[in-house]
């Protein structure tokens, strides 16, 4: 055990999701088993084979000043909203120096799966309609995938470094892993870390639908995202952002910060299998979980909760379930597993971050949210899936894992400990 290594804790949370415009509402929705999936009402949706998605519960225009919002892609708007909540939640206001923080000791990591795709596509529409002169001079700063991270960095005064990991559906979790490394390696004392995505638009929806990746349960939107259920037929596209404030334990303690949980470890691997399908053996996922536990100095018997990646695809949910059983062995039965994607849909680059927040709050409040829509648990999923009601996690020290796996075979597992 590397006793001298910097411990990293979570001192702030921020999110805008399909089930709440902030963390408190999102968490309350998770416990209540509320779905954020709806039928899309836009004209363009009518001609698509998949007409359901999970839009954020609170539109950015309702909470962001107009002049700021117009310079941000929708994914950047989500990131700013979540970042501001997290920053304030950590007890800060304004720029780093106003809070006695050295800008060179503050970093930002905000992941993105696909960057400012809606800005790119609507910019092209404008080009075709009105010619090159009408392409916005802001288009590039808005659509570049690092834009949310950079804008957050400007907002908080971060100069240690501003980064944007990209690993499809694992991006948000990779964001937290990168932030963990920044602090452990001594590059920063505080890192605002997470991920964002806003890709609900006919092109990505048609593309995902044509990959047979999306649920076609258009007539029952709230029941479409059903991880682990026998009737699952694909994921539901969601949007939103999650950002947390990671801080060295020493720095947090010195300023008397409220600590939610410890980000104790991260584990990563790559499948080297297929550009969109998971390795059915789950070997890469097993490695990521084992590395995360080892990095966190945890045994499988220490873990009582796991927020699964489980997106509601027939193949993916099963591959992960097998991986969890392989990684945990005889201890599998005492891990209460949930997939909050059953409620939020799949937030792509934002998923790993929002789901980390769910895992963090599960440890902080000592209760884990249920997986909704598990009407008929798949027999091949040999896990203790929390369904129906939230699950109390018991007394004593707690530990939880959060899994995120991305198209391309990117596996990230994050290990959290209660404090």
């Amino acid at each position, binding site marked *: 055990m590397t006793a001298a290594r910097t411990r990293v804790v979570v001192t702030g949370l921020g999110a805008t999701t399909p089930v709440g415009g902030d963390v408190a509402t999102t968490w309350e929705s998770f416990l209540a088993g509320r779905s954020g999936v709806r039928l899309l009402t836009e004209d363009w949706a009518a001609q698509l084979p998949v007409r359901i998605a999970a839009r954020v519960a609170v539109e950015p225009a309702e909470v962001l000043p107009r*002049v700021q919002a117009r310079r941000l892609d929708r994914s950047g708007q989500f990131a700013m909203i979540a970042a501001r909540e997290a920053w304030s939640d950590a007890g800060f206001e304004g720029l780093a120096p106003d809070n006695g923080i050295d800008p060179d000791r503050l970093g930002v990591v905000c992941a993105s799966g696909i960057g400012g795709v809606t800005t790119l596509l609507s910019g092209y529409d404008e080009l075709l309609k009105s010619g090159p002169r009408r392409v*916005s001079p*802001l288009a590039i*700063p808005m659509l570049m995938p690092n834009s949310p991270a950079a804008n957050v960095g400007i907002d908080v005064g971060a100069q240690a470094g501003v980064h944007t990991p990209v690993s499809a559906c694992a991006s948000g979790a990779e964001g937290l892993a990168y932030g963990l490394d920044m602090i452990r390696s001594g590059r920063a004392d505080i890192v605002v870390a997470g991920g964002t995505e806003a890709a609900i638009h006919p092109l990505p929806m048609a593309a995902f639908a044509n990959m047979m990746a999306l649920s076609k349960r258009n007539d029952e939107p709230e029941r479409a995202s059903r991880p682990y259920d026998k009737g699952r037929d694909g994921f539901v596209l969601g949007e939103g952002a999650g950002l947390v404030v990671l801080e060295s334990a020493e720095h947090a303690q010195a300023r008397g910060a409220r600590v939610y949980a410890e980000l104790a470890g991260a584990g990563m691997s790559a499948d080297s299998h297929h550009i969109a399908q998971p390795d059915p053996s789950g070997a890469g996922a097993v490695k990521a979980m084992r590395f995360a536990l080892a990095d966190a100095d945890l045994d499988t018997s220490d873990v009582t909760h796991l927020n699964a990646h489980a997106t509601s695809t027939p193949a993916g949910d099963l591959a992960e379930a097998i991986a969890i059983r392989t990684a945990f062995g005889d201890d599998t039965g005492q891990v209460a597993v949930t997939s909050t994607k059953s409620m939020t849909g799949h937030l792509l680059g934002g998923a790993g971050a929002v789901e980390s927040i769910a895992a963090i709050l599960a440890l902080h409040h000592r209760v884990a949210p249920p997986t909704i829509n598990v009407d008929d648990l798949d027999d091949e999923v040999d896990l203790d899936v929390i369904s129906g009601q939230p699950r109390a996690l018991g007394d004593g020290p707690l530990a939880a894992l959060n899994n995120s796996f991305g198209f391309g075979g990117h596996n990230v597992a994050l290990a959290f400990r209660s404090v």
Partner: protein
Amino acid sequence: MASTEEIRSDLADIVNEVAGVPAADVQLDKSFTDDLGMDSLGMVEVVVAAEEKFGVKIPDDQVKNLATVGDAVAFIERAGA
């Protein structure tokens, strides 16, 4: 052709739309960058919107000469004449 004040007022609405500056602050003697806090990207947006609104062409190499609101109004008046 519209009056100087009409042009200033319409231009002020554009500046407000692009940069959030209160229209009443967009007076003839004000510098876009120093007084109204606009950056170069915002200036391009204002120029393109003004071209559309007033039916004039404002070449890119002329934009740097439009330091104040008054400069821009005068240019639009001349271009529309």
